[in-house]
């Protein structure tokens, strides 16, 4: 007779802390599950935090779209936990058709990794792969859809700087239309009680965004008014030269975050950017480098901690952790 597994049910919620096989998006997470993940991530913050709990585990980072920071962050997170991390980057052009995509996924699956971290340029592609493999899948960004670890690291950064998320006014500014970071943050910060605003020129706002956030603004000054947090989004170069806005300098004039414009926000405002930044386009260098108000480097640091927590939690079942 085997001993009953110790209960990991959280007595305060009466629920399993994280009843998910994959991390495909934050839209599927209950608020307490997201908070629990953030608490787990807190435990991994710090220069000296490493472990060998994932020793012998293989983690494959399959990136079908270019990435430097997210890939690096996942790689470091895996290595700090003692896992064998393998990166597979596929140029956007060579793998475009999906049977190849599913074949690639099945090939990776047959190598029996303990987790797959996937980025893909098409919305829903990561979910499609997750349906065909038998290990946990972490979404590292799919098209315009979700980027859950980014939203979690943003939430963690805000929580550490501000001590809370609930009740804060968060202005997310820039290319909302094409941004998976914005979508994931709308869902996560909204569910954690922040008053989320979307600020963008009308061409980059996206339809019905007012259904996803508390308020939408097309004026930066109005959108920043009394904000506790300002999150700038990257504007892709090909979209700032006449496609969606006429020119970088016009964009900067009306939507760039400058010290002057930031005066509309609260004095202790936290400035964030998922990176890489276009200095002089969406953000002025003086603001980006403001060591008091900018949380940009802290976001990078939180990224590793959040990804360590996600890799730990999602592989617990396979590692035979009691209760999982």
């Amino acid at each position: 007779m085997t001993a009953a597994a110790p209960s990991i049910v959280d007595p305060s919620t009466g629920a399993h802390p994280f009843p998910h096989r994959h991390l495909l998006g934050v839209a599927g997470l209950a608020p307490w599950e997201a908070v629990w993940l953030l608490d787990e991530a807190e435990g991994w913050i710090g220069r000296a935090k490493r472990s060998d709990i994932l020793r012998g585990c293989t983690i494959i980072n399959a990136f079908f779209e270019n990435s430097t920071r997210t890939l690096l962050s996942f790689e470091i997170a895996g290595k700090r936990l003692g896992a064998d991390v393998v990166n597979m980057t596929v140029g956007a052009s060579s793998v475009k058709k999906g049977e190849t995509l599913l074949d690639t996924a099945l090939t990776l699956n047959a190598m029996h990794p303990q987790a797959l971290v996937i980025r893909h340029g098409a919305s829903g592609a990561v979910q499609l792969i997750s349906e065909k493999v038998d290990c946990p899948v972490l979404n590292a960004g799919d098209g315009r859809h979700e980027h859950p670890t980014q939203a979690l690291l943003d939430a963690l950064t805000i929580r550490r700087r501000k001590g809370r998320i609930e009740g804060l006014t968060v202005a997310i500014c820039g290319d909302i239309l094409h941004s998976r970071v914005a979508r994931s943050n709308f869902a996560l910060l909204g569910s954690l009680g922040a008053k989320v605003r979307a600020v963008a020129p009308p061409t980059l706002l996206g339809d019905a965004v007012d259904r996803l956030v508390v308020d939408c603004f097309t004026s930066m000054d109005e959108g920043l008014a009394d904000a506790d947090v300002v999150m700038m989004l990257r504007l892709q170069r090909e979209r700032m030269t006449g496609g969606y806005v006429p020119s970088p300098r016009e964009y900067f004039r009306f939507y760039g975050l400058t010290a002057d414009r930031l005066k509309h926000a609260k004095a202790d405002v936290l400035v964030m950017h998922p990176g890489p930044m276009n200095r002089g386009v969406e953000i002025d260098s003086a603001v980006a480098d403001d060591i008091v108000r900018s949380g940009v480097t802290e976001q990078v640091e939180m990224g590793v901690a959040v990804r360590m927590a996600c890799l730990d939690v999602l592989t617990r079942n396979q590692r035979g952790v009691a209760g999982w």
Partner: protein
Amino acid sequence: MTLAFVNAANHDVVVVRDRLIAAVGGPVPGDARVIDCAGRHLAPGLIDAGVFAADAAACLAGGITRVVLMPDRNPPLDDPALIEFAQRIGKPDVWVHPLAAATRGLEGVELAEIGLCAAAGAVGCATGRSSIADTGVMHRLMQYASGFDMVVVSHAEDAALTGDAVATTGEFATRMGLAAAPAFAEALGVARDLRLAEATGCRLHIRQVTTAESIDLVRAAKARGLAVTCGVTPVHFLLNEQSVTGYRTFARASPPLRHDDDRRAVIAGLADGTIDVIASGHDPRSQEDKRLPFADALPGMTGAETLLPLALILAHDGAMSIDAVLAAMTATPARIFGLPGGRIAPGAPADLIVFDPHASWRIDADASVASAGNTPFDAMAVEGRVTMTVKGGDIVWSL
């Protein structure tokens, strides 16, 4: 051989002789093979006005005896020889009436030889899966086609607005992160084509109208006396945009699925006769075309086998009578495309189906006889089933 259909719910006796309907009513000839319809309905063989594949097995199982074939073939049907060949694809059991490609290679630039194609048997010409973006080309096409009294079948969407969109603009597409085009992209295309029809006197058939706004435009054009007709496929009156939840590529349609208000407007348009035709848009797709990320998957779905039961939902829900539903798949497309059949009358071709409007069954994609099983209606319970299909006096399929 002489056949006599008796005991149908809607006909007394129908006699078939020499591949034609010989008599409606009257005595049963002594030499006739009597077919007892047992209270089921007897109807003309369905005419499916707008399919992408002449899938004979699926058509016969669905009671379809004639199809109007879209020119989107490989190569496109832009040549009289290809039109002649296409007419032989389904014979003898299903007759294929091809539409000529309106422009060479369906590229929307140069007019194709639509006159020669019509002489070779094309029943109209079509812009294909997409609209002709260049209004000048569309204008000249309709001017030219009017000279042959040829119907132009249009896919009405504003091509520049539609771009690479795979969904209808709105909260749902935004949440899903799908590239979306506004529903009014269709209304713009419809408005343009209606205006060109008015200017040229050309007969226009808009293959699919799927939004409230474009249906209103067609309704107003008909009230002005324009020679315009339009159609729809079941997916646009049965499903709305949320059917693609989970990135279900089988529910990817072109035009994309709409908001529920538009879906209900389609039903209203069918009920008041603004929408003339119900077609299947039968478009079998392989796994390679569908098991892809949503935006990379091709649109389209099979539908020949399920056309009748899905259309009958309109009758069972009280939106239309069974006769009106049948007319949208028989007499009306026959009139628009000048086809024989579509009616039960002496001298008409003996294309007939026997169906039970209340037989309930469950759609099963795995059991489909179509060349692929890509239907978003898999496992759906439906009412109404064809039990016998007769083509040219021959019983070509029975349950």
